[in-house]
């Protein structure tokens, strides 16, 4: 009986402790982890993602060949400081007819509740969709990276993905970033003058 009890404890502990074993940060050339996001309620955001059905969705369902994901937290000072810069990047993409429907920007607030993500969005007037990851599920999937962290992904026609950019820390000059990022895509011919 005692052995069974000890075994039960060990088993439960093992189950619980095995779960948080984190993956490594996404590597360029690899696949994006299988991230599930809650569908946005806002129709503008749905239109932006080209997606508007169901309760949840996966990143390859976004109707664009490239997605840039910002892993952030409302509680992270660098993310707060970087917010206007990322907004600028979004504006640059949207203002360029050749990039507008090709590169989509989303943010995932790791450890942030829906309320906290909304607070961040309102505070910094963030025009692109942000998603909460209150229980750190996605954070673990992306290797528990520090924030902000940027992941650029190519979405293939067959629904597979390829990571084309993986970066810890702020973007720096957005024009320079966009040029460098575009060079990693098939869009490069369209961006360069």
């Amino acid at each position, binding site marked *: *009986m005692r052995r069974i*009890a000890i075994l*039960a404890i060990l088993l439960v502990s093992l189950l619980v402790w095995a779960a948080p074993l984190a993956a490594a940060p996404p590597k360029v050339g690899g696949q994006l982890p299988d991230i599930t996001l809650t569908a946005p309620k806002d129709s503008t955001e749905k239109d932006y993602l080209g997606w508007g059905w169901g309760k949840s969705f996966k990143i390859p369902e976004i109707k664009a060949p490239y997605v840039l994901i910002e892993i952030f937290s409302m509680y*992270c*000072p*660098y993310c707060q400081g970087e917010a206007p810069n990322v907004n600028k990047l979004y504006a640059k993409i949207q203002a360029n007819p050749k990039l507008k429907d090709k590169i989509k920007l989303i943010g995932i607030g790791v450890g942030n509740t829906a309320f906290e993500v909304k*607070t961040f969005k309102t505070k910094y007037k963030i025009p692109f969709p942000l998603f909460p990851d209150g*229980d750190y599920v996605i954070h673990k999937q992306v290797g528990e990276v*520090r*924030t902000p962290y940027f992941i650029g992904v190519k979405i293939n026609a067959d629904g597979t993905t390829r990571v084309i950019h993986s970066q810890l820390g702020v973007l720096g000059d957005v024009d320079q970033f966009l040029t460098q990022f575009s060079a990693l895509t098939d869009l490069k011919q369209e961006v360069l003058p």
Partner: protein
Amino acid sequence: MKNHLSRLPAAVGLAVLILFWTGGAFALSDAYKNNIYHPGLLKPVDSNLKVKVGKKAPDFTLPAINGEQVSLSQFRGKKNVVLSFVPAAWTPVCSDQWPGYNMVKDIFDDHDAILLGITVDNIPTLYSWTNQMGQLWFPVLSDFWPHGKVARTYGILRSDGVAERALFVIDKKGVIRYIDVHNINQRPALEVLVGELDKLK
């Protein structure tokens, strides 16, 4: 057999305890680079609360980073007060909590509330640490000497000498309206605090 069976509830209890002991997940800002010490998973709460909702909050005076002395009583009749105790500078969850509050000054303003951030660290440590958070709009107080006196008065000094991760909402009359001695491994959700501040309106 009876004797063995009697151990089963204890075993199950221990298993459940282990189950709920987890959840020390956190995300770190790149602002801190590799300067954060990871204490690992800690006992969620390790103290006995000595204050109650509905009772007067014990007054205190503590030194702030900017050199001022700040007393709880100075806000009496003027501001609602949120006390945010965090365990220690340069640790994972704490390093995120105040930058979040720093971003939402307008929420505190809307509720006519001031935030006082308190740890048992000394002033130089608090100075270096909070410098990584950017410009903070609220006072950061040091409950370093006599060590953890205020935390002890409130009953939130842990057995290893750091404070709990605790929130106290105190109204303009100096009465405690809300207490959250949180699981030290986790950050309290902002909406809960905002909900409590809403109740003061």
